[in-house]
């Protein structure tokens, strides 16, 4: 995990702005570590525990792993219904008891290296407008994050 106060402050400020704009319970950013290939959840807000700090995103597994693998956003409307794979393939949703999430990739240097994920602990649709907002915030985050 990177311990960069400037980066952390900027990211958390953006999280606050995002939460003012969209009604969400949880927001987190996973990003590839400077050394090695591991992708970990670097920052979170609205978390109910500290499990996210110990989770390493598995390539191709769960919401974040699939976003990194495909480079595409993923929407889960009502976990655990209509998911691909099993409940155990969704660690961050289990850890934070999320029901609806939307996750988008971060593309520094044209490769998916990170994931911005927003979630709610009840069933709630993320509107197209909200999805676009998250995509814009992800672009802002790309310029802040230390790679």
């Amino acid at each position, binding site marked *: 995990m990177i311990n960069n106060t400037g980066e952390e402050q900027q990211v958390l400020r953006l999280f606050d702005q995002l939460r003012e704009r969209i009604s969400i319970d949880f927001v987190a950013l996973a990003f590839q570590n400077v050394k090695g*290939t591991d992708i970990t959840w670097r920052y979170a807000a609205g978390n109910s*525990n*500290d*499990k*996210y*700090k*110990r*989770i*390493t995103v*598995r*390539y*191709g*597994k769960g919401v974040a792993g699939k976003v990194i693998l495909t480079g595409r956003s993923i929407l889960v409307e009502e976990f655990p219904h209509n998911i691909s794979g099993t*409940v*155990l393939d969704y*660690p961050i949703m*289990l*850890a934070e*008891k999320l029901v609806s999430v939307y996750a988008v990739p971060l593309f520094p*240097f044209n*490769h998916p290296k990170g994931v911005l994920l927003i979630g709610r602990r009840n069933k709630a649709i993320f509107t197209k407008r909200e999805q676009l907002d998250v995509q814009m915030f992800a672009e802002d985050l790309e310029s802040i994050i230390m790679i």
Partner: protein
Amino acid sequence: MEKKLVDQEISSYIIQFQEEELKRIATELHEGIGQTLYGIYTSLGFLETGLDQPEMKQYMQETALLMEKTINEVRMLSVELYPPALEIGLVPAIKSYAKLFTSTYGIIVEIESSGTPQDISKSGKLVLFRVCQEALANIAKYAGTSCASIIIEWEPSLVKMQIQDYGEGFDLKEALKKTSGLAAMKGRMDLGGGTFSAESEIGKGSAIKVSLPLEQPS
């Protein structure tokens, strides 16, 4: 009575067949596909040294990184299916799996082993390992806790294992009625000749307690 014995034998056979298949797939993933991917990974590194264009070099590095991630995932998948550490012993296999479990679900697992580890049959090790895996999966799914513990006690003719969490707990009677992970654990222990019990209290957590007699050397 006779029908029950036949059913048990069929269940044992099915479980044994499944375990052999899981081991075969895990070995194939680790030693077959994993090794081939590693070969490609090293070739990519070699090819990169022959590239002059910075863009192509960068592209090749990203491809190698992608390959490294895939190799890691294949390795983890193999460990989940059948941990190679099981060949060394029950405790090393549980420790290895607990490490993977923590990095996947963020739940810390404390492991305590007391007494002198005894020889345990291959099928006995597998039964206890699968129960442990199932109990941890239930903790990740339902317990809502950040830590769990596994206590293994070795006695001269018995091994006891307790998987405990201090999470939300559940209604034990209701859970046992369903075809759940609890029923699967109980079934495995019954077939393996061991005992199974579960305790849970809403708001206080739950514990799975199992024991397995050890085969005495003849």
